[in-house]
């Protein structure tokens, strides 16, 4: 059941109707039951047992790692519980791949996300950043809350748990915001991401038959597909959560406007980047602090290799992570040289510098996406090799269309332009403060545009497989 499907919207409607009718003390229990039911519907039912086991270990581990216990007990409980959670992830994600089986079939939907949240909870309790959660059902809902269960955002205990303790009160403004977020999410997924998919597939699924600008256009199309797919999902998830009085963290902030790869990671999949920063990069960087800048570069490279491996047991993801790690490590090492060069050119802080850096960052990220999307490492390298060859059909509209109708390209470019004009959450929600005719015109255009312009084939969300 995809979040962009009518079935999911019907499920949300049913859950919300019962949620609203129930007395306050039963609401969170109902949300927990609905979240487990949702997990049973989207994944294999046996995963419910895994989720229950992971939750139980997080709860008991958190109690044992709480400040009132002895230091030795806390340390042992923390490491045992974290090892158990990571073992769940490894056995469902990497063992099947190691045995030569299709990890995307056998691996558990959502496990990558709730396991990271369980590790964050245990770490924050152990480090005394967040208090130990006294109610197992609240911790279970924190991990399993259905809008974010399959694909994040990856929530922190300090941000989500307090919200789950607050009694729900109906919030008219919040409900309006949630509906606009869901509408925008559906538009991004159904109109843009799903429309970009055939442009991407035409080249990436047949790399030996294409060359030159065709590959460049397909890589741009993939850059659009993945951002609107994931950002669309996140907006739907945040919108649905808002209906139940829960504000999930923002996961995207116009990532392709970043002026450096490090800034890109502060704007792309923000909840995952912060998780990596706090639980992998910082501890590693601290251990290597004697090496100063070199230690930071090594910690960056290692962190991005972990990031690549988290996406899947494939060399393409390792290469993608290694590329990002290398970008970041080089940026740290070369920062003083780069600063001196811009100063010497008298362009430091100029618009030209900013534009140049945005374009370069976008192309560095797009280059890494080639490895992320390609079916194998050798196909990624083949695509990059064939990039330098002449374009078979020349540089015309035919090349831009990549075998699709011109109307499809026109709608794709137009919808990307519309979505880019309002790239940030505040911009999207500003419509709620406009006069009624404008507001209702926008609602109508959004619904009608999504229904009429949605791509003929809809695929599942890309990040659900991770």
């Amino acid at each position, binding site marked *: 059941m995809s979040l962009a499907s009518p079935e999911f919207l019907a499920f949300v409607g049913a859950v919300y109707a019962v949620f609203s009718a129930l007395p306050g003390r039963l609401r969170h229990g109902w949300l927990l039951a609905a979240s487990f039911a949702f997990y049973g519907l989207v994944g294999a039912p046996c995963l419910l047992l895994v989720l229950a086991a992971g939750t139980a270990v997080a709860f008991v581990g958190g109690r044992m790692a709480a400040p009132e216990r002895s230091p030795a007990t806390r340390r042992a409980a923390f490491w045992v519980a974290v090892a158990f959670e990571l073992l769940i992830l490894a056995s469902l994600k990497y063992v099947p791949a190691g045995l030569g089986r299709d990890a995307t079939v056998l691996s558990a939907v959502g496990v990558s996300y709730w396991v990271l949240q369980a590790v964050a909870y245990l770490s924050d309790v152990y*480090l005394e950043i967040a208090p130990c959660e006294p109610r197992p059902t609240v911790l279970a809902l924190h991990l399993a809350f259905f809008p974010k269960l399959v694909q994040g955002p990856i929530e922190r205990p300090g941000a989500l748990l307090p919200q789950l303790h607050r009694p729900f009160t109906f919030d008219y403004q919040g409900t309006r915001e949630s509906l606009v977020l869901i509408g925008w999410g559906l538009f991004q997924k159904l109109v843009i991401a799903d429309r970009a998919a055939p442009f991407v597939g035409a080249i990436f699924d047949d790399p030996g038959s294409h060359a030159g600008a065709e590959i460049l256009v397909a890589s741009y199309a993939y850059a659009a597909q993945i951002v609107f797919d994931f950002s669309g999902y996140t907006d739907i998830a945040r919108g649905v959560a808002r209906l139940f009085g829960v504000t999930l963290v923002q996961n995207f902030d116009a990532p392709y406007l970043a002026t450096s790869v*490090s800034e890109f990671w502060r704007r792309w999949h923000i909840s995952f980047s912060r998780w990596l920063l706090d639980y992998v990069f*910082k*501890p590693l960087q*601290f*251990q290597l*602090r*004697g090496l*100063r800048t070199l*230690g930071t570069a090594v910690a960056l490279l290692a962190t991005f290799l972990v990031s690549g491996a988290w996406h899947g047991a494939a060399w393409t993801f390792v290469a993608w992570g290694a590329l990002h790690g290398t970008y970041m490590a080089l940026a740290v090492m070369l920062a003083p040289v780069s600063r001196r060069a811009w100063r010497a050119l008298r362009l430091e802080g100029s618009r030209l510098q900013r534009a140049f850096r945005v374009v370069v960052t976008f192309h560095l990220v797009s280059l890494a996406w080639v490895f992320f999307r390609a079916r194998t490492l050798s196909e990624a390298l083949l695509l990059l090799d064939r990039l330098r060859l002449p374009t078979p059909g020349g540089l015309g509209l035919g090349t831009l269309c990549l075998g699709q109708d011109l109307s499809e390209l026109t709608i794709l470019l137009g919808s990307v332009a519309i979505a880019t004009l309002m790239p940030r959450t505040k911009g999207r929600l500003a419509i709620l403060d406009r006069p009624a005719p404008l507001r209702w015109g926008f609602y109508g255009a959004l619904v009608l545009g999504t229904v009429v312009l949605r791509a003929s084939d809809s695929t599942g969300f890309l990040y659900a497989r991770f």
Partner: protein
Amino acid sequence: MTTLQGIEAVLREVFDDPGLVITAETIANDVDGWDSLSHVNVVVAVEAHFGIRFTPREALTFRNVGDMARAVDARRQAR
């Protein structure tokens, strides 16, 4: 010189900003250039200035400069 003044002197040097003024409530976002990548330089410079070594837990849980100053004082008293 108080611990806070000592940290201020370190931050001025690390971020090449002689006019930098901090309080116990100052956070990394308040200081130009203090981000997750440069944070380790601050930690190393503060350790060198006061002749101490932070534990990983201390270094990972500083919420503001005041937390850092308290950790410095605790380390110095423990010597």
